[in-house]
């Protein structure tokens, strides 16, 4: 794996998310509705996607800014989408929760918890059928990202059973950030309440299930590389529970029009008053952690790392500038794309 490239992607995602967050203060009213940030999950996202090759596909949830960035989408088009501009990657039709960039293998997201799991499973079925019909397309895989909360959805159970039964080329990456919005995982999950990892659930489907440190990009990549290879070889799916910590609140504040939106503090603090937990998570931030590992390991020097950060800052400034300068969609365009 290109470890420096991995670090660069992680920094790009972090800077993008920081700019989304800052937009609420710097450009009030520009972002409407609900956004969900991936800060804290960068190592998991980039380490996973690094295991893919062209032709593979990804589906995810509404917390979806990071995946297309790692897959190569234009951050300007992504920011413009979040700003609701006509130059957005979906022309302003989708917004933060519904990014899609099929040209880069990002088939899309569902805004409803758990519902992209069967969709990704279907994409894997399509890949399997394609493989049977064409040597050139043999071995394409699908990565399916979702959160720990989604594993309580029936869609999860139904899909993993079928994927195992049909030996579909898919890897399920459950980003377990310990919170479903403001509910802690042990409050809603019988396995967590019993002190067990959520990857235990794979047992019900005769499927390998592993729990890994999702804050370590190298570990994530090694795990995903193995699971993806297994899927490519036609040996079926794997459930990877990637332990991450979301460093921002579930989403920005929810308020009627006219009330300024902002990002509240993390639920560990606002709901549970557990400042220590949140501070510990900040200390374990995967982005500086990976930088530290690379610098200590002699892979990257401090100056080069700073240059990567500076590059990302400039790139995302450009994304914000592009989005701000972009026009709103034509109102009447609301009637386009109702049908294909």
């Amino acid at each position: 794996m290109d470890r420096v490239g991995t670090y660069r992607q992680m920094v790009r995602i972090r800077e993008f998310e920081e700019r989304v967050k800052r937009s609420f203060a710097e450009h009030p009213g520009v972002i409407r509705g609900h956004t969900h940030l991936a800060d804290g999950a960068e190592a998991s996202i980039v380490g996973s996607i690094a295991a893919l090759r062209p032709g593979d596909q990804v589906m995810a949830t509404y917390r979806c800014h990071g995946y297309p960035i790692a897959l190569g989408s234009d951050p300007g088009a992504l920011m413009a989408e979040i700003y609701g501009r006509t130059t957005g990657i979906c022309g302003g039709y989708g917004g933060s929760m519904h990014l899609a960039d099929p040209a880069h293998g990002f088939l899309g997201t569902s805004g409803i918890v758990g519902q992209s799991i069967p969709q990704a499973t279907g994409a894997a079925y399509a890949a399997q059928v394609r493989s049977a019909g064409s040597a050139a397309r043999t071995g394409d895989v699908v990565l399916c990202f979702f959160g720990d909360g989604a594993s309580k959805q029936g869609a999860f159970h139904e899909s993993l059973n079928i994927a195992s039964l049909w030996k579909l080329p898919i890897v399920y990456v459950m980003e377990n950030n310990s919170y479903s919005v403001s509910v802690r995982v042990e409050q809603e999950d019988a396995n967590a309440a019993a002190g067990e990892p959520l990857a235990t659930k794979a047992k019900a489907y005769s499927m390998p299930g592993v729990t890994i440190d999702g804050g370590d990009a190298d570990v994530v990549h090694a795990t995903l590389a193995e699971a993806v290879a297994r899927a490519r070889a036609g040996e079926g799916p794997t459930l990877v529970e990637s332990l991450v910590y979301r460093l921002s609140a579930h989403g920005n504040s929810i308020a009627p029009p006219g009330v300024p939106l902002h990002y509240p503090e993390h639920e560990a603090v606002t709901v549970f008053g557990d400042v220590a937990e949140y501070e510990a998570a900040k200390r374990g931030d995967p982005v500086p952690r990976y930088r530290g590992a690379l610098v200590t390991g002699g892979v990257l020097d401090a100056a080069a790392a700073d240059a990567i950060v500076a590059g990302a800052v400039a790139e995302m400034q450009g994304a914000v500038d592009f989005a701000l300068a972009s026009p709103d969609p034509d109102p009447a365009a609301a009637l386009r794309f109702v049908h294909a």
Partner: protein
Amino acid sequence: MAREITYIAAIMEGIHQEMARDDDVLLIGQSVGGSPEDPFVATFGPDRVRVTPISETAEIGMAAGAALAGKRPVVDCTMAEFLLVAMDQVVNEANRFHYMSGGQVTAPLVLKAGYGFTAGWAGQHTGSIYGMFMGVPGLKVALPSTPADAKGLMATAIRDDNPVLFLHHYLLTLETGDVPEGEHLVPFGQAAIVRPGTDVTIVATGWTVHRALEAAEELAADGVSVEVIDPRTIAPLDVDTILASVARTGRLVLVDQATKHASVSAIVAAEVAEAGFSSLRAPIVQVTALDAPIAYAKPMEDFVLPDVGKIVAGVRRAVDATVGAGR
């Protein structure tokens, strides 16, 4: 060359021919492809035809995902009520993808399900629930009433680039009719005038089309000329054909097996009241199912459903009434 086959055979022939024409068409469901002798498995192999567990959310969600990835899945959902188990996937996912992506992706899939099995199937297997889907943007809804339309609408549904709900009427399953042998497409959004007439327009769907035709025959003996229109697809809905007919007849009777407040009838009534009011010479009459679930015992089942007698009475009400009398 047309020949007489059953409604259900026509549907399956439509799927079969489209699968033969386009390798991307897949067929999955709880009651398809379960054995190697299955005619679909035998022809198209176990990759393209697969039996699924009782997992509605996964079946329909997977169809959406496979569609995004370039396939054209047909999901045999068995009964329309089973769609309700997976409501999010039916009305809030695939049908939104094209729009939310700004036109980047399409989700061509067909959800085939039977409805209206008022033959003692009681409260959870007999509903005519299409009304709750016809106003869902991005979703198309076909309700064939004849074997030929069943085949033609299925072929069109499979070729359509949108999610299509193909709802076939269980009471018509073994009805026969002439069906073209080869490629046969029935366009969406194009109503059929199944019986021309001059005095009253009836709009009916599915099984009620045939009840309306029987009523028209009975009324013809009394000198009342009834035009019967079958919209064939309710989304898109061919309002123009209905308006043009009402412009000629001045009277509209709407027949629907759905409960009145969730019916095609209510929507057509609203459209004609809004755009065809000046044509009307009598109040619109709705002959729908009564607003109740379907009971098990036959007398109660019969009571809530439209029938020929109720249609005839409805037409007579329309004919006898005069708008603005005394004005």
